[in-house]
């Protein structure tokens, strides 16, 4: 049964994408570590960690696509799950600093020392253990999504209302994490990490492994997401998106379906956050900013929602563009980004991948129809292609 589940995930284009991602996971670190710096194909560490960051964003966009593209829940608060995953990882990394902090206090992170904290708050317990921290990376965003979704979906809050309260959620979390009394380092956040599972976070090998891990997790999550949306459950999911009431009348528990998807998506976002933090070296409340979550929506829309691959491409393209513009034409960046949003919504409502796909299937349908007219094709092909 499980194999059938996985097998269903292996649609053609998903396989190709996964293969490409896996190739990246091997080739990029290999090129970074093995080739000489002046070699034409050498990828500098800087570019590799940049690409690692894009992959984390891609995973975040994928998570959003699962709820938005397939379940119709436009979450304007996915940045919160991302940030929570990041904080869980950040707390682990902070505890790994041990007595190498500037005050040399083995028990307390630096920011607690200089704000006169006497002992570690209870919610920091256990974060010195890697497995526990990794569990929290999944558990904390998942729990928040569960509690939030349990209330919201049961009360049938949907559409715009849901979007706005997810935004309120991430905004409230941002304000809360900005408070120094919360014990998460206030606006400075958590930073100056030293090592992860015994390896220096700045070592070239560690960076390569982190990059490979990001790519692997992206591929894995893509497979899981693909398996979900291509299962029977996935069909119901799309039903919920397109006609929620009808699905409910057919006897499905819509709120449970939504809740499951929302929690899985939040966990994906948490994983993305956890991989993001060691690569960029800081997590702070700015990640909760509502604007960040909206940007994720934009990546997804640009790439094409409801396509799984689209958001990945959208996230990579927009962020590569951002890196380029903020370096080359700093003043023009917001114009370019703003223009992109408008252009995509007006001219590419299905996003890049969606448009290519529909063009592709459209041509296929036309060809099939032409074939049918000639009396050579079969009718089912037309129906399938037009679907």
């Amino acid at each position, binding site marked *: 049964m499980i194999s059938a589940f996985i097998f269903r995930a292996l649609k053609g284009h998903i396989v190709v994408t996964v293969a490409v991602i896996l190739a990246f996971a091997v080739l990029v670190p290999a090129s970074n570590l093995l080739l000489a710096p002046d070699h034409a194909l050498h990828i500098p560490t800087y570019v590799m960690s940049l690409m690692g960051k894009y992959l984390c964003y891609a995973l975040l966009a994928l998570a959003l696509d699962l709820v938005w593209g397939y379940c119709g829940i*436009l979450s304007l608060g996915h940045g919160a799950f991302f940030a929570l995953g990041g904080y869980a990882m950040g707390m682990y990394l902070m505890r790994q600093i041990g007595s190498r902090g500037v005050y040399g206090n083995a028990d307390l992170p630096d920011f607690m020392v200089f704000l006169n904290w006497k002992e570690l708050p209870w919610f920091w317990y256990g974060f010195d253990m890697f497995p526990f921290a990794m569990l929290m990376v999944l558990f904390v965003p998942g729990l928040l999504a569960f509690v939030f979704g349990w209330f919201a979906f049961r*009360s049938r809050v949907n559409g715009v209302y849901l979007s*706005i309260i997810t935004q*309120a959620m991430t*905004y409230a979390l941002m304000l809360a994490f*900005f*408070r120094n009394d919360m014990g998460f380092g206030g606006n400075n956040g958590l930073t100056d990490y030293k090592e992860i599972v015994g390896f220096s976070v700045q070592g070239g090998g560690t960076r390569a492994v982190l990059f490979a891990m990001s790519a692997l997790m992206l591929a894995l999550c893509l497979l899981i997401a693909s398996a979900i949306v291509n299962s029977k459950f996935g069909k119901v999911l799309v039903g919920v998106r397109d006609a929620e009431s009808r699905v409910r009348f057919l006897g499905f528990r819509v709120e449970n379906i939504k809740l499951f998807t929302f929690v899985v998506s939040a966990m994906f976002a948490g994983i993305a956050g956890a991989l993001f933090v060691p690569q960029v070296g800081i997590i702070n409340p700015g990640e909760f900013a509502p604007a960040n979550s909206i940007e994720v929506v934009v990546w997804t*829309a640009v790439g094409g929602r409801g396509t799984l691959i689209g958001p990945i491409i959208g996230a990579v393209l927009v962020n590569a563009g951002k890196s380029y513009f903020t370096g080359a034409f700093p003043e023009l960046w917001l114009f370019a980004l703003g223009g992109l949003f408008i252009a995509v919504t*007006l001219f590419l409502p299905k996003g890049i991948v969606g448009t290519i796909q529909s063009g592709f299937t459209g041509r296929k349908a036309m060809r099939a129809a032409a074939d049918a007219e000639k009396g050579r094709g079969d009718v089912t092909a037309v129906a399938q292609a037009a679907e």
Partner: protein
Amino acid sequence: MLIRFITLIFLILASAAPSFAQAPDPKPLFNQLADADFNAAEKLVGQIATTGDTRVVPALNAFAEGDLYFRKSDKAVFAAKPAGAQLELIDPVTGESAGQVAKGAVTKIRINNNLRRAIRAALGGLTLMSPDRGTRLSAADAILRSPSAEALDLVEAALAKETDATVKARMEEARAVSLLSSDRSIDDKRAAIATIGKLGGRDALGILNAVSSSIDASLKPDLDAAITAIQNEQQLWDMAQNVWYGLSLGSVLLLAAIGLAITFGVMGIINMAHGEMVMLGAYSTFVVQQVIRENAPGLFDWSLTIALPVAFLVTGAVGLVIERGVIRFLYGRPLETLLATWGISLILQQSIRTIFGPTNQEVGNPSWMSGSFPVGGMTITWNRMWIVVFSLSIFVGLLLLMKRSAFGLQMRAVTQNRRMASSMGIKTPWVDAFTFALGSGIAGIAGVALSQIDNVSPNLGQSYIIDSFMVVVFGGVGNLWGTLVGALSLGILNKFLEPSVGAVLGKILVLVLIILFIQKRPRGLFALKGRAIEA
């Protein structure tokens, strides 16, 4: 300005009076200011005041304003006022002009807060006997605010001559506060405590508290009783004050949200560029004020009145362009309007940043928007007061427009059933366009008001956008009354949470409460009924 004018008249009258002729000449005292440090200057001001020569009042006023200079060549001290590129020197005692000099030829005499206090007290003493009622009143006020035993004789002398009831009462209070720090008899002081106790308010509390450590033990019970009485009264007023703060915050939220109640609430566009419309309104105010400052400074008090239509037209026009250029292609796809308008908001922000620069721009308060007035034991600031009035009148105006005008009828018809409206001959595209323009225009005039209390910077809109959405969603989309009730109740809730949990936690709690509330009532406080909204 007015006070200076009055004192000038007074000066002319006073210099005619022969009784001042014998007083020691304050002129050398003024000239010593050139070399004095802050402490010495403070003493000199006291000495100038004790000459009792009221001719020095304008010069002391000039000193308080930082307009007192000494000539570099001979260290003679003058008051000065700008005359073109030069300064016109005015003799500090006689008030006669001493010719014009270049700015470089004189040095400003520096002043700090202690000196300002000393000057204020000196001026209070000197103008107590002024023939002008307003001057006497402000003199009594000055003594009330900086009580000293030295002022006591002056106050009593003035009190003996005073005929005006209001001024007399104020002087009685001034006498009481000065008496407390003097060495008068216990009984006098007991009476003084009673007078101050009746005065009430924060200042009285401050005065009583200040003497509580030094006062004679036998007076302690009186003093404590007076303090407790004021505190009890003040507690009641604090409640009222809190309600007022809540209303005032609520009216700001209402202002920020009311345009959105149209574009989002009525039209269903998730208008992320709403905040930028508010910002454009604020920048329109800035531009109007710039033009007025350069061309007709006399009209400055009218600047906001002029800015209102300007802002409405500017933002309305921008709104019209946005609707025709982008949004009309997106009807029926509300979540995509979110993306497009977010893009528009980024472009507008960056355009303003490119044109005006990223820094704050100065938008001045006209005189009728500055200062405050007391209501019982609380203070109400004029700008907050006008903003409450202004936002309520916008609300009423909008309500009338929606419910009583032909345009409002068409607007409602189109949003309720587009096809039916269209078949009745309504040009739905233009109704859409003008509805959006109306919403944007109202956001613009909200920006005029908000420019009075907040930063005018490219980030202005960002700070209001989330709050605005919360208000509209909390109140119920598509219902103006909901927006009103939502804004005011969130404002008051916020202000009642703030004193107990602090501003930061208060804001978080309000957000959490909104999230919980939406679970209970998924369509807000005033939900529209019917099936149309299910779409």
